[in-house]
């Protein structure tokens, strides 16, 4: 625990301790970014296991022709819930959870810019996930695919509440994702440690920042889309009803304007982790820091210009299709730039072959294949041939598991000492890495072949005469070592909490600021604020420490150069984010059954927000009469 920045050092202006309350209250009210981030990560991993179980059930059903493990109705619910879980309840939240935990530490902030909003984001996410799985268990799981295409998802073809559950799940998860994105952007811009200018940010922070901006501009599309779908279904509007002037393709435009950037929202943080691990393993600065940052930004911008390649089969004008083909191929360039920068960084170095680097090597192989099939799918003739086949399933899993899950496993292994103060078992780590890599390729590579042989997606069974049985069996056999590998990883994480070797502050000899703190880091009130004078402060030794900041005070710096600007009082922990999330959940779920859910819910939320924002009288204040008397001389009274 030999931290460079020792929290035991005295700081100025220490204020009074907050009132002590029960531990349950503390647990519900905490606004520590470490606690919120940890909860996001653990909950997302829980949903990852549930989504994985659903996937295994589907693979069992498809292992041989005309199997009877699942019926068509249950199968539809499972593939929809699997997709929705992995996209909305696992991939985005786990990346945001890692961001919530590590971005403040990496930029030298004591806590998030809006810690209460962070707490609200977690609770609303948790309630959304529980809502989806309670619905599935009560045979009301959504069943029109994770993209809920109309007219299938419309009121005529999907009566009942199943699609409404999906639409409301979107409301839950997008509220959460947007809250986290705003938090991470403002934390990065306004709470950096002095000296941590934008050109010194660790690449993971850049990736997290760029991703958060993508969330801000992409998620509203799916919120509006799912809102319009809910209105069509619940109150009889006609957004997607062609009979009354609506348009089914409008849904696809709205959905994929969100859905394609979503892919990058999921894997950009992952490749940010890859950069961190490559730098740490090779023990040298990243080759091409600026090109890598620009590649992240370029990917984010281009990601908004290629959603229509999901719609090539809808009969687009040729010029439009050509434009989106060009854009889709173009986006391979910034990712290629990052690949070459990683290779150049590693070239001639002797990288430390530890488990995080093992996951990075697995990422290189799988993500490359996913990227190459992506370039294939960007081409209209190939796209039309393999549209809606298992080739697309294979491609998207190579991109998402390759681009996000391998780096996530690597990232969690890399940061586990900081998260818990313990080291993971190397032996179990390598076992998990090997099982996941072999199982993944065995499970998903054959799906390319199945797609090329014409096997459509989203079918619950097939005839023996199709000849798809062998590769489906291979795919199912591969899914089990993949699942086992994930379980070994989680077992390793759970077991090491107690029996793992104690971690030093910086066990990997890494370069960024989180490693200057003890493992795990101290509570935010006791967290010292560093001064960074280089891009790799722990390697260059150019590190200082801020004094004159109270335990309840937070430093605000300038957005670009991170010069100290002013100091604010840290918000107190409060249970109101939890209550507001409860009220929001009540409103969202009640709206499924009655239009009165909206006014009642809005009233409840308003009351809880009033209490949330009511002044605590702990902030610096001024005397009103004095202020009124001295209006003419504002400088006088600002002291």
């Amino acid at each position, binding site marked *: 625990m030999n931290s*460079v920045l020792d929290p035991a050092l005295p700081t100025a202006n220490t204020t009074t301790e907050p009132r002590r309350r029960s531990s349950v209250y503390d647990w519900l009210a905490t606004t520590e970014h470490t606690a919120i981030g940890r909860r996001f990560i653990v909950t997302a991993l829980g949903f990852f296991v549930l989504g994985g179980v659903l996937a295994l059930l589907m693979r069992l059903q498809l292992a041989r022709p005309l199997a009877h493990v699942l019926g068509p109705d249950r199968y539809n619910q499972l593939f929809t819930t699997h997709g929705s879980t992995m996209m909305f309840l696992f991939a985005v939240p786990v990346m945001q959870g890692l961001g919530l935990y590590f971005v403040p530490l990496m930029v030298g902030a004591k806590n998030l810019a809006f810690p209460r909003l962070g707490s609200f984001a977690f609770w609303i996410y948790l309630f959304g996930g529980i809502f989806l799985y309670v619905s599935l268990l009560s045979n009301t799981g959504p069943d029109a695919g994770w993209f809920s295409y109309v007219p299938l998802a419309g009121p005529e073809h999907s009566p009942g509440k199943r699609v409404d559950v999906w639409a409301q799940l979107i409301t839950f998860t997008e509220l959460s994702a947007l809250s986290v994105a705003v938090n991470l952007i403002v934390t990065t811009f306004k709470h950096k440690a002095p000296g941590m200018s934008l050109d010194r940010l660790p690449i993971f922070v850049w990736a997290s920042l760029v991703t958060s901006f993508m969330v*801000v501009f992409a998620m509203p599309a799916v919120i509006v*889309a799912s809102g319009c779908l809910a209105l069509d279904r619940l109150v009889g*509007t006609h957004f997607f009803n062609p009979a009354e002037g609506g348009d089914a393709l409008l849904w696809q435009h709205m959905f994929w304007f969100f859905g394609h950037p979503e892919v990058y929202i999921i894997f950009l943080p992952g490749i940010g982790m890859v950069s961190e691990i490559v730098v740490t393993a090779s023990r040298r600065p990243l080759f091409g820091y600026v090109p890598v940052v620009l590649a992240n930004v370029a990917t984010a911008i281009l990601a908004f210009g290629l959603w229509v390649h999901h719609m090539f089969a809808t009969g687009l004008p040729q010029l439009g299709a050509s434009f989106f083909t060009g854009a889709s191929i173009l986006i391979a360039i910034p990712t290629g730039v990052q690949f070459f920068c990683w290779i150049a960084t590693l070239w001639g170095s002797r990288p430390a072959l530890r488990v995080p680097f093992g996951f990075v090597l697995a990422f290189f192989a799988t993500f490359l294949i996913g990227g190459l099939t992506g370039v294939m799918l960007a081409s209209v003739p190939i796209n039309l041939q393999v549209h809606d086949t298992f080739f697309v399933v294979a491609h998207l899993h190579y991109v998402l598991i390759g681009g996000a899950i391998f780096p996530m496993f690597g990232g969690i292994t890399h940061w586990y000492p900081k998260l818990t103060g313990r080291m993971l078992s190397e032996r179990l780590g390598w076992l998990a890495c090997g099982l996941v890599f072999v199982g993944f390729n065995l499970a998903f590579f054959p799906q390319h072949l199945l797609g090329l042989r014409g096997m459509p997606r989203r079918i619950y069974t097939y005839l023996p005469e199709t000849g798809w049985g062998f590769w489906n069996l291979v795919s199912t056999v591969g899914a089990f070592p993949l699942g086992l590998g994930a379980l070994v990883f989680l077992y390793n994480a759970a077991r090491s909490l107690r029996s793992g070797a104690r971690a030093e502050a910086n066990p990997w000899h890494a370069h960024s600021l989180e490693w200057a703190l003890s493992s795990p880091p101290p509570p935010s009130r006791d967290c010292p604020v560093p001064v960074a004078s280089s891009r790799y402060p722990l390697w260059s030794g150019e590190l200082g420490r801020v004094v004159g900041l109270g335990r309840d005070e937070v430093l605000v710096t300038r957005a670009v150069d991170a010069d100290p600007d002013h100091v604010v009082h840290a918000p107190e922990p409060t249970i109101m984010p939890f209550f507001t999330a409860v009220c929001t959940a009540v409103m969202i779920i009640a709206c499924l059954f009655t239009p009165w859910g909206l006014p009642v819910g809005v009233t409840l939320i308003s009351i809880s927000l009033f209490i949330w924002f009511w*002044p605590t009288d702990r902030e610096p204040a001024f005397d009103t009469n004095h202020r009124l008397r001295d209006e003419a001389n504002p400088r006088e009274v600002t002291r």
Partner: protein
Amino acid sequence: MKDLQHDDLPVLDLSGLPRHATGLRTPLWWGTVLLIAIESTCFAILFNTYLYVRNNFDEWPPDERLHLLPGALCCAALLLTVPPTILYRRAAHDERFGPMRRWLIVATALSFVSVALRVWEIQAIPFLWTGSAYASVVWTSIGMHTLEIVTGAVECVFMCVILFRPRIEMKTFEDVESSALFWFFSVFVWLPFAGLFYVEAVSR
């Protein structure tokens, strides 16, 4: 890697920094701008939805014409809230309590006038949302914007109540300033919609 000990670390003393700021120096300003970015994107998508479904109709608008008077009056009332909002935002930015409270009260009163006119505007819509895709977009846009201005008006009331407490926190200035920023957005985001809906309805 240099193994630093904490005793070796140079220190930066920040005890002299101000304990309060306003404007774009504050995290709240940035948070509000991002909230506006999110909501602007939502409104932009609705705006495009209107233009998209328009292609599906031979005659546009397909339903009865919107009544111009209530819509125009509501728009005018919203625009009338802008000058006092500018004044209370400026006062908050300069940390002048008296003018800030006075103009906030005026702006709050006017915001409720615009909400009342909005209720009239909604009552005067001559079709239901179930009529056509056009009707659905119009109702949804007006509904979303109504939620927006009601939220803004209620937030103004909340701010007024806080400004009459005996103890006023310094951060109230930045809260009021951010509230003004949000209100500006609520007013100006409606202008393209009002133009689209009413100009088209009148010029048919």
